[in-house]
């Protein structure tokens, strides 16, 4: 029993260290990416293989779209560039640093999850080579979180709620897409580095807690931003939204 107070003290110390570290890293916070070399090669390979079917599905869908509507040929590249540049928008964040939206939720609403799996991966590839953020061996794992699970969550929520309340559907789609990416990344890190005593659950809680400081407020602010952005799109680019089919069956 005598060890309890010291353990509690240590827990506190570590919590304080984690929070301080998060706050001190005042460089712009991007979406949570796994850096190059962080995953053991078996896991890197596993996530590449896990994402591969979604890429194939996305590319097949794109080829079909291009045959159907040839004007989408250029639009894919333009949309991907837009998604990349969107991640340069400034968002206020509690930690004092500025953070950036991922655009995953908006992309899934506009283009659907199949196309988004390709666009999201292209964005990750460019982030790795133009911003030195993320990586090539970890591209599979990052794409699984940001270009597969995130868009699927967003698209599901959007389909489910768009008839009831437009703003709520947009908000939840964007916020939960961002949030699910963070949960998937934490799970990927925990699977690769399970805790010696706590196992996967312990490790998942650790990784989750460390990134929660930046990622949960980021998810909320991305949700709010996307609602405002969608409103702006409705007034600025209603014709484009309609041609994408994003305004069908909405409340």
């Amino acid at each position, binding site marked *: 029993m005598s*060890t309890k107070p010291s353990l509690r003290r*240590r*827990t506190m110390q570590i919590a304080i*260290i984690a929070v301080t570290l*998060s706050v001190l*890293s005042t*460089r712009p916070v991007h979406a949570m990416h796994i*850096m*190059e*070399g*962080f995953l*053991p090669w078996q896991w890197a390979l596993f996530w590449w293989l896990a994402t591969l079917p979604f890429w194939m599905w996305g*590319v097949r869908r794109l*080829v079909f779209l*291009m045959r159907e509507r*040839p*004007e989408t*040929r*250029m*639009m894919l*590249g*333009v949309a*991907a*560039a*837009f998604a*990349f540049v*969107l991640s*340069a*928008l400034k*968002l206020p964040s509690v930690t004092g640093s500025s953070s950036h939206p991922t655009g995953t939720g908006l992309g899934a609403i506009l283009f659907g999850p199949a196309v988004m799996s*390709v666009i999201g991966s*292209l964005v990750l*590839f*460019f982030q*790795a*080579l*133009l*911003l*030195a*953020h993320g*990586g090539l*061996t970890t591209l599979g794992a990052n794409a699984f979180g940001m270009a597969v699970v995130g868009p699927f969550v967003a698209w599901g929520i959007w389909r489910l709620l768009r008839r009831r309340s437009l703003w709520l559907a947009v908000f939840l789609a964007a916020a939960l897409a961002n949030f699910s990416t963070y949960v998937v990344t934490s799970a990927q*890190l925990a699977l690769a580095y399970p*805790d*010696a*005593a*706590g196992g996967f659950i*312990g*490790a998942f809680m*650790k990784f989750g807690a*460390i990134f929660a400081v930046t990622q949960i407020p980021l998810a909320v602010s991305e949700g709010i*931003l996307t609602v*405002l*952005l969608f409103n*702006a*799109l409705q*007034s*600025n*680019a209603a014709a*484009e939204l309609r041609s994408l089919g994003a305004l069908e069956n909405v409340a």
Partner: protein
Amino acid sequence: MHRLDAYAHAGRLRHVHPLSKLAFALAIILLCLILDRPQVSAAALLWMAGLSILWGGATPGFVLRLLTAEGLFLTLSVVAVAVQIGPIGQEGGWSTTITIASPAQAGALLLRSFACAAAMNFLALTTPILELVAAVQRLGAPTALVDATLVMYRYIFLLLETLMRMQRAQESRNGYAGLTATLRSAASLGGQLFALSWRSGRRMEMALQARGYEGGALSMLTPTYTAPWSWPVIASLVFATLLGLARL
């Protein structure tokens, strides 16, 4: 971002074939991951950072800045590996401890990630992304994807410039003073930018069609690549160092 791209275009290794640079960087990354020894990672980190500066022609300050930014993000993730959470004692309460093995594991992990990041920085600093994509196309990547990448690359810089101009205009009108204003400005900026990029994409599509483009690969000028004798020598020297250190 512009500087990284500028180095890629103006670096001394521009005329080495992009695929050989990609293969080299990937081989280093895979060696670090598979061998997974701290001494190998340390050597790879030194080699790749050194080669980026001495061979690729990047300034030491810029290479260090890239690594620092990556290091901050890495440290955060590594903390979670050093800290262990688990059931303590018989009561089954959960607690946080730092075990003896975990700091060593975390240190090795940090070093390995750093080495791999340095290898990727080497690739990013010496190889223009478009040449890399064009080279990958010859290996059988889908044309639709390669075209999208080419368009994307061009548009990133166009849109970024527009975004910065709009942002500056908003900032000069107090657009980012306070939370509400920031969100509102960011949203209207995103909306405008989307409309703008969409229309400009349509115009480009029309312009290409007017000139008889009916799909298929967009052609681009590929520079002539040389095969300098120093390339295989240095590459095998790096591999030999890493493999030799792995035996220790």
